[in-house]
């Protein structure tokens, strides 16, 4: 083994994740929280920071934040509070952000990585989002306050991650947990999941190094790439005997590099003040118990159960937990059809692909609700449609409200198992391909494929292939 100085360095990574809660209105005012509206059309005196306007807390946001805390196994504060965090920026209408500082909604909690490693969480708190400052249009900065006041939770993880891969896996698991708990859609492209990373390097056995914060990591891939770059940069500095500065750096995805955004100075004295406009967020034991009981089963637990109890492959189980909608569709289809493996086959392949390609919210939107998929599975099981015919039927079911059974007849896809009809097609095939029949008779079973192909072609793919095969063999053996 060759000695490399870089092996001496240990990397310590911590993540801070901001996640937009899936409410319809903002955290402290009734403006719509929806993404993508024209600039400054989801704005009122409260989120505009108009003089005299006051915040009133959205209780659904509290409920969703509580759900997140419970799903992550945190200790929930029964009397959390809001504080004002002060700084000046053009996207911060009041000159302060209403956040939770001294008494966050929850502390502790943990998240299991794919490797089984458990990463601890420090805290989860509720806060309002800032607006959006746009710098790349013209000579000025433009400010849109539609996002100002949208409800977020900030989840602070302990610095227990050792590699960029672990950081990405942490994010993947966190996102999955939040999505399955119904807390957020966690769509990085819409900014409903944002991630800040802090990273430092130190020699084994020595104290932690100076940490650098990375911002602007707007995709899972960027988190990995930015960390790779930053770790390399810090290692190069340290190996050259230089020091890492405590600072905040922005990741420039186009250039694949990080650059200084600002140094840590006196500037960030946030002068926290208990928010006098809001009282305590009181949570009762019944409410906690109710939310705990209402938490859906986590994705990881479902995958394990499906593999051990329903015999699914790890791959299928993984695909089926890509979204809660797909997972729910699978559970329901499996239950209705009594054929979990068949349900998994359809959903993990054709249906999942169709949902992704259409950008749909789930199978039901495409006409692949559990009742209809179960009906399809039943038709295949009863031999009323061939495997290949079933694919055509699935295609026909999309966006069509008619029952699969009716579509089957309508499209002429019903599989023919009638002995008389099958025998006629088989005789025709033997007559047309006497050579193949002779080969079969001589013991070359694989020549049967050609004959079966002719039967399928002649029947318009409706012939029951298993029955046709039996009949072909019988006819060839009977007629010397």
């Amino acid at each position, binding site marked *: 083994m060759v000695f490399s100085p870089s092996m001496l360095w240990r990397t310590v990574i911590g993540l801070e994740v901001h996640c937009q809660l899936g409410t*319809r209105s903002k955290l402290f005012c009734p403006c719509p929280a929806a993404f993508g509206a024209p600039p400054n*059309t*989801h704005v009122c005196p409260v989120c505009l920071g108009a003089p005299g306007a006051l915040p009133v807390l959205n*209780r659904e946001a509290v409920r969703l934040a509580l759900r997140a805390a419970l799903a992550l196994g945190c200790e929930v504060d029964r009397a959390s509070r809001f504080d004002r965090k002060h700084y000046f920026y*053009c996207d911060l209408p009041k000159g302060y952000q209403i956040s939770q500082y001294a008494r966050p909604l929850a502390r502790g909690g943990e998240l299991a990585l794919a490797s089984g490693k458990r990463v601890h969480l420090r805290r989860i708190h509720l806060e309002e989002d800032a607006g959006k400052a746009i710098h790349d249009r013209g000579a000025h*900065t433009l400010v849109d306050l539609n996002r100002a006041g949208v409800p977020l939770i900030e989840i602070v993880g302990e610095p227990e991650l050792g590699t960029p891969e672990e950081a990405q896996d942490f994010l993947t698991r966190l996102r999955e947990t939040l999505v399955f708990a119904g807390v957020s859609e966690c769509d990085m492209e819409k900014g409903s999941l944002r991630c800040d990373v802090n990273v430092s390097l130190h020699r084994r056995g020595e104290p932690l190094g100076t940490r650098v914060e990375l911002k602007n990591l707007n995709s899972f891939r960027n988190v990995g790439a930015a960390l790779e770059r930053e770790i390399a940069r810090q290692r190069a500095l340290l190996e050259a005997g230089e020091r890492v500065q405590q600072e905040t750096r922005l990741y420039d995805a186009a250039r694949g590099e990080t650059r200084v955004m600002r140094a840590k100075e*006196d500037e960030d004295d946030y002068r926290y003040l208990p928010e006098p406009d809001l009282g305590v967020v009181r949570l009762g034991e019944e409410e906690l118990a109710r939310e705990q009981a209402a938490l859906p089963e986590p994705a990881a637990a479902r995958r394990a159960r499906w593999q051990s109890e329903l015999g699914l492959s790890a791959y299928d189980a993984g695909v089926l937990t890509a979204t809660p909608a797909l997972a729910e569709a699978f559970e329901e289809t499996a239950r209705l059809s009594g054929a979990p493996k068949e349900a998994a086959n359809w959903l993990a392949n054709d249906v999942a692909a169709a949902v992704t390609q259409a950008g749909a919210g789930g199978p039901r939107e495409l006409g692949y609700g559990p009742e209809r998929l179960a009906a399809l599975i039943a038709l295949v099981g009863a031999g009323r449609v061939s495997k290949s015919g079933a694919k055509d039927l699935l295609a026909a079911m999309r966006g069509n409200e008619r029952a699969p059974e009716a579509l089957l007849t309508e499209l002429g896809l019903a599989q023919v198992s009638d002995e008389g009809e099958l025998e006629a097609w088989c005789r025709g095939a033997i007559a047309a391909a006497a050579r193949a029949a002779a080969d079969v008779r001589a013991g070359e079973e694989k020549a049967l494929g050609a004959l079966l192909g002719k039967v399928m072609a002649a029947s318009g793919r409706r012939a029951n292939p298993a029955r046709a095969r039996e009949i072909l063999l019988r006819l060839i053996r009977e007629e010397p």
Partner: protein
Amino acid sequence: MSSVDLETLRTLATLARLTPSDAELTRLAADLGRILEAFEALAQAPGPRPDEPPATRTRADRPVPALDPEAFLAAAPAHEGGFFVVPRTVGGET
């Protein structure tokens, strides 16, 4: 602890986004020093833990239509295409 030196005051002014002149800063330092000195007794007070405020009033998650942007954009010092306009900058925080 009651004297406020000019350097501290300058830092406070930066935090508060104010730029008083040097003469004003000198006068303000004297004012603040005098005021804080008069308030010195406060810093000696033991004081119990502050009262916990009552449970906050909440609202249901019902969106209502927002303000017509015309109602407030017209009052903005600079706006364009529905946006507020400020000098070009980078930065921010969440």
